[in-house]
């Protein structure tokens, strides 16, 4: 990276968690600041102007959700939530409240870095950057609205393209069902997750090598979908 290092603010009351997060981020060229409670976190968010905030939900003085809401009242800085409980409802609520992504403890550093980078990329996306999003064999040209798989163009219906477009602009990040429904459909159809499921199935049939084992459009149970930018090796043969 040529530009100055990104500053990440780590908010967690557990010193041991902060310690490995710091090590992990510093190893990958980030500048790190830390906060162990909500008050410090809000102060640090204004003073050190971080490019990314990693926010733990269980803070001693204020719940993480509250911190997120206060942050969002004046800042668009990417926020990734750390949580212990993997409750789908809470995940959706947090994403709707403005979190860019979440990760459930315990997690590996690689996973968090991938999400952090995705969140940063989306936040710092500039007009000068290439309008082509690449995810494995798939490339989506957001300007010409063309999709190609292994250099072969893929024909998508309007709705299928719309779906892929939204996922591509959030590449690497989770997009909630609600978000997709709102962007793709209008009126009553917005409430119907079934439409979305079927649309995703059709899209997968066109872009996945094996639609039965999707590796590009990943389902996040109960939350939404994620367009994977780094493909993981397949598990099932």
């Amino acid at each position, binding site marked *: 990276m040529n530009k100055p290092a990104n500053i990440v603010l780590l908010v967690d009351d557990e010193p041991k968690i902060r310690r490995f997060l710091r090590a992990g981020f510093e190893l990958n060229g980030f500048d790190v600041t830390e906060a162990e409670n909500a008050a410090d976190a809000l102060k640090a968010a204004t003073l050190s102007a971080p490019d990314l905030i990693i926010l733990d939900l269980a803070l001693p003085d204020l719940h993480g959700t509250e911190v997120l809401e206060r942050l969002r009242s004046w800042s668009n800085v990417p926020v990734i939530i750390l949580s212990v409980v993997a409750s789908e409802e809470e995940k959706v609520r947090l994403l709707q409240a403005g979190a860019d992504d979440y990760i459930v403890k315990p997690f590996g550093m690689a996973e968090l870095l991938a999400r952090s980078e995705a969140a940063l990329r989306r936040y710092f996306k500039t007009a000068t950057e290439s309008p082509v999003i690449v995810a494995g064999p798939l490339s989506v040209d957001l300007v010409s609205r063309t999709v190609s798989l292994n250099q072969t163009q893929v024909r998508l219906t309007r709705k299928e393209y719309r779906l892929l477009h939204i996922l591509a602009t959030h590449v690497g990040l989770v997009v909630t069902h609600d978000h997709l429904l709102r962007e793709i459909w209008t009126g009553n159809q917005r409430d119907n997750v079934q439409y979305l499921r079927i649309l995703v199935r059709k899209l997968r049939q066109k872009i996945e090598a094996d639609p039965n084992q999707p590796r590009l459009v990943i389902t996040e*149970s109960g939350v939404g979908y994620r367009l994977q930018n780094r493909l993981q090796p397949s598990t099932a043969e």
Partner: protein
Amino acid sequence: MNYHPSVVEGSAKEQTGPLENDVVAAPPPGNERSLRGAFLTSALPLLLSCAGIGVVTAALLPMGQRAAANLVPIAYLIPVIFAATRWGLRPALVASIAGIAAADFFFFPPLYSFHVDDPQEVIDILLFLVISLVSSDLAARLRRETETLRQREGEIQHLYEFSRRLAACFTVSDLVAAIQDHLARTLGPDVAFFVAMPDGHFEPPELGSAPQTVRESVAAMVASARISARTIVDQPMRETWLIRAIFSQTAVHGVIAINIGRGSRETIANKTSSVEAILEEVSLTLQRLDIGKAMEDARLRLQAQLLRDAFHGTLSHELCSPLAAIKGSASVLESMPTVRADNRARMLVEAVSEEAAQLDGFIQNLLNATRVTAGGIKPRLQWADPEDIVNAAITRRAKHLSAHRVQTTFAGDLPLVHVDTSLIEEACGQLLENAAKYSPSASTIAVRVTADSGHVIVSICDQGVGIAPDEKLQLGRRSFRSPRHQASIPGSGLGFWIASTFVQANGGTIAVLSQGHGHGTTVSILLPASRPTASGQTPK
């Protein structure tokens, strides 16, 4: 007089049925001694009644014949009614005849003779006779009623005290003591309780409290296994004994033998019915004790469950945080250039990561188990693609499945399922993990998703150790682990339980099929689905 020993079996028709019919052998009334006693108790009132007439006569005599004649009929009524209320009808009759005689002799002319001249006086005498008869009958009846009432009140008072005492009984032995005490107090000391022992025989009471006949009779009743109510007569003492089993819904607690005593058939019947009332109270109390015991058992079970859940809850939470630090730190270490360069260091770090992941799996199971029991599961139902769920489950368990070949087959155009995706994903994951755990490495785990009228069926089929029929029955139990694998394969026994609970919470069913030991296992999950989407149209 000559008595034949008589033992009458009660018909065992109903446990609470009236026993009056059973009381047949009552000794005929009266021998010489009792006759003399009866004479003494009935002669004294007669004499006293006559004395009363004498007193009235003596009081009337000084008043002069004319004045006295007017007062006579009324004055003589006083001792008559007094006798009737005090001693009953017979003394009253004697008193009224004595009164007429005295009035005629002393006050009606001709004086000092039993002759009556004036027809008017004959009418007076007859009138007096009628009035005295009627009023003494009324008074006597009133007296009887009062006596009965007083007696009834006494019995009710006794019964009330008894039931209060029963209410304080917490064990069957308390109850036995209460019965014995109460019956001894109301009926005399002759109550014997044959306590049922756990091995089935009845422990007789200490010697002396029940005569040999009664003991034999109880023994015969127990031996015939026909526990019924019956009345027998103890021949040497000519006393009637009532024998009844004391039982609740679950067990026979003993046999009670009560000496009703002797007396007329009526007396025996009365006493029997009051004993019946007491025994009725006893059987109600026994039922209460049964319920109480059941409640106590349930309470203990609940406590154990709560304790276990609290343990799971705290344990899981306390473990989660350190584990996150371990896993995270290991993952950072893994990516460090120095560690990557050193083969040994890399292997060690990888071991830490793997073990942490396994520990995490156990903790997640504990958390899930706690979630099930604390407050139950509230599934967030939404339409989901069964393929997505199965794929997510396979991806999530990639580590566990790495030694096996996972073969997935999806039927074309599967309908969507209406479930809580995370719960079903977890259930599938648990079953996959089990399939991998209980089948040899490099064997195939086949995952098949098919559609059937209104349902989607996910079956997971392994080539593993299989399930014996007796193990199958226990599968749904929480924390069940087959003794076959307890030493060789790690696990908490929660997996299948969590899976089946989650599936059921989503309105699905889970079925296990195994040809037995060594023949592999197929677990199928049946989930509610929408109509098939063959035409690609959105299902309603």
